[in-house]
């Protein structure tokens, strides 16, 4: 150990990078760092196997900008998460989940939390590396043999020759006064290239390109057509261990998967007691008035027009004349057996009680199928209201028009 106190012979040709001192304990390092700082040096550093408490103060290291970068990145992550989820879920592809509002902040909070942490963590790591000037492919200390123990049990202090206060003799005296266990002159490194190792650079390029690949495949898939079935990795949703309607179920004697209601029972909300509203009958005869549940209003009329357009016009036509697209197509095919749909404005239908019209829509008639299962009763009544309006429009007289409007028709 005593040999270590004397500087080793150095190659004469090499330029001096700095003076390196070695210490046995973190306390000696802190003590030495305080002295070097007080001497007014700027280009110097300490090296230790682990973070040493108090070294920042001893070296006079100020707070960096890193906490602010982290805070900024965290807030950026937070707002990125909010904006992204709003855009995805409520704007670009509105997707209703269990009846919640399209943009539900509570559902977004986990992602907000995660992106906040992710952005902060990555920024802290990258910011730390950049502020430290890393990665640093070559350093003169790498060539000093004793410096290897900095990752084990030794503590080092290096004053660079580039420091304006540096003077080979005086600085050496200063370092000797800190009682190091060894002092060594560090020559400049003229051997190791300053550039990043080529292999590492190529590897990074390859990895970066590979990272673009999934995105590129996704873009290609979005802008091309294929006849092949999509790759189906997770089958769970398609083959579920359950019985579907119309399938056979060996558990029951009748072998049916969908069960009928027990005799004498009614499903909740399906009692449908009101004869007028649900069946169009009042006191054993067809109702001649609309039931109380149906509001005679512009809204109901508009609803009726819309529903008529959806369910009735394919056969009966826009004006209810029995000339819808289905009828035209059937005529064009001329395959026979086709009965023209009724003209809903003809006289016997004009005189038909609304209750009977309701029954027709509900249960169907002749070729017309039952629409009861598809259209809720209030919509059926709304359709009837619109049919009545159509009938009025075809068979109305001047007397049906309000007096104030008659002038415009003459």
């Amino acid at each position, binding site marked *: 150990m005593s040999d270590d106190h004397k500087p080793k012979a150095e190659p004469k040709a090499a330029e001096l990078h700095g003076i390196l001192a070695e210490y*046995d*304990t*973190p*306390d*000696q390092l*802190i*003590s030495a760092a*305080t002295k070097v700082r007080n001497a007014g040096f700027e280009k110097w550093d300490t090296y*230790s*196997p*682990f*973070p*040493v*408490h*108090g*070294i*920042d*103060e*001893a070296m006079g290291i100020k*707070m960096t900008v890193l*906490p602010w970068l982290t*805070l900024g990145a965290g807030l950026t992550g937070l707002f990125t998460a909010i904006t992204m989820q709003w855009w995805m879920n409520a704007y670009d592809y509105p997707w209703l989940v*269990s*009846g919640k509002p399209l943009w539900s902040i*509570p*559902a977004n*909070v*986990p992602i907000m*939390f995660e992106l906040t942490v992710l952005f902060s963590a990555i920024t802290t790591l990258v910011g730390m590396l950049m502020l430290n000037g890393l990665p640093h492919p070559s350093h003169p200390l790498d060539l000093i043999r004793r410096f290897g123990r900095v990752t*084990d*049990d030794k*503590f080092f202090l290096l004053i660079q020759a580039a420091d304006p206060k540096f003077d080979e003799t005086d600085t050496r005296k200063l370092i000797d006064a800190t009682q190091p266990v060894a002092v060594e002159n560090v020559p400049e490194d003229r051997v190791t290239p300053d550039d990043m190792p080529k292999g590492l650079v190529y590897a990074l390029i390859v990895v970066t390109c590979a990272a673009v690949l999934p995105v590129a495949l996704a873009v290609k898939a979005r802008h091309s057509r294929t006849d092949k079935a999509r790759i189906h990795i997770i089958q769970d949703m398609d083959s579920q261990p359950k019985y579907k309607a119309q399938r056979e179920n060996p558990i029951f004697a009748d072998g049916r998967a969908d069960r009928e209601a027990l005799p004498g029972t009614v499903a909740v909300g399906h009692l449908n007691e009101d004869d007028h509203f649900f069946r169009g009958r009042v006191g054993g005869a067809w109702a001649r008035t609309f039931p109380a549940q149906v509001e005679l209003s512009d809204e109901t009329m508009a609803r009726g027009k819309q529903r008529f357009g959806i369910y009735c016009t394919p056969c009966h036509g826009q004006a209810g004349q029995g000339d819808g697209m289905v009828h035209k197509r059937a005529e064009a095919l001329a395959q026979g057996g086709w009965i023209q749909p009724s003209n809903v404005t003809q006289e016997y239908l004009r005189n038909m009680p609304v209750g009977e019209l309701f029954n027709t829509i509900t249960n169907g008639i002749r070729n017309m199928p039952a629409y009861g299962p598809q259209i809720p009763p209030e919509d059926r009544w709304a359709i009837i209201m619109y049919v009545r309006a159509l009938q009025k429009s075809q068979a109305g007289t001047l007397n049906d028009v309000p007096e104030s409007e008659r002038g415009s028709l003459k």
Partner: protein
Amino acid sequence: MATEKGKKDEGKEPKKADKGGSGGGSKGGSGGGSGPTQPEYADDNIRLGAAGQSLFTKAAAVGAVGLAAAVGLGSSAGDGFKRFSLSYTTAFMWVLALGLGALFWVILQNLVNAHWSIVLRRVGEIVAAQAPLLAILALPIVVPIFTGNSSIYIWSNHEAMSANHALHKKAAYLNSSFFLIRFIVYFGFWTLISRYFLNSSLAQDASKDPKSIMGKMRAVAGPAMIGWALTMTFCSVDLLMSLDPMWFSTIFGVYYLASCVQGINAFLALVAMFLHKQGVLKKSVTTEHFHDLGKMVFAFTVFWAYIGFSQFMLIWYANIPEETGWFKERFAGGWCSGWGLLSATLLFGHFVIPFFGLVSRHIKRKRPTLAFWAIWQLVMIYLDMYWLVMPNTKAEAPPFALIDICCVIGVLGVFIAGIAYRAKSLNLMPTNDPRLPKSLAFTNL
């Protein structure tokens, strides 16, 4: 500071420090710290003395007046002490959080072999040792349960339980005789454990072999922590969650834990500042220790929000009436009025604002700002208890009233009197703990 110590240390124990270094050991939070053989607290005052007696007298008097006023206001309300009981439960659960938090804190420091906290450990031990006092303070709300006619815990009444079909299954757990057993187990366990740690710590002061006592305390800390977690969880379920026996949340214990841990760290910071004013522990408890307490207050600001939101989000997502009803009560009135305003106050006042308030290192290292946020968070923890308990008044808005303040003053006064009574005759620092030098020399990175 560390540098100065380093100098002294150089000649004496270089090998020890070297060994610590080669182990790469900054694990204890002070790997680079020094280990001086000469105790640094030698000239520090570690006795409260007369100030303790005076604090005890004042706190006991204020507490007694507060409790008397609360009982007076409660009886004049003429509602069978229902309003008083709810108000008292709020105040009691708030103070219980400090007592339980202290016990948690003491067990934790032993469990992880912490160095930084040794200078504060005795204070924590004394606060934790108030468990029997807390058991007595619990009597006004638990005795009616034992007798089966609590005005706020409807499950204590057997007939009321039988009348409510939805509660039949819960009667196996929620009944007064089983609760009596649990109550004894909770407070018995806390009393035993807190006594054990305080007595061992005191024995260590005089012991010639402090290291073996340290090891024993550490060995007890593991099982003690498990026991603490279970008793704290079930106690919070019994005393807070069962106020609305139809409602349940499996995360509830952890939610109360957040208040316990944040509460005790804020409380210890304030206690240390009070001690400094009395000229006690002035050189031992430094900015570094305050910084660490501040970090814990900050960490549990986030933890509280994390747990509180986890509880809310699952219930919000599943949207099952028997669970959402509890939140519906607490959100009534929207963001700006009624219970909803209190919920919003907690969201912003207990999390968002203190998050940005406490995030900076400088704020945690300056005593006035740390004191401000410690008091702020203690107030918020009280409001959190209020938010948990008071909707059971079925009032349309938080019924803040004088009785609430009287209950807080009463329970807190008695609690502080108990701490002062214990603290006045004891060393307020474990002077003989082998880790003390490291704690004294502790610095944050």
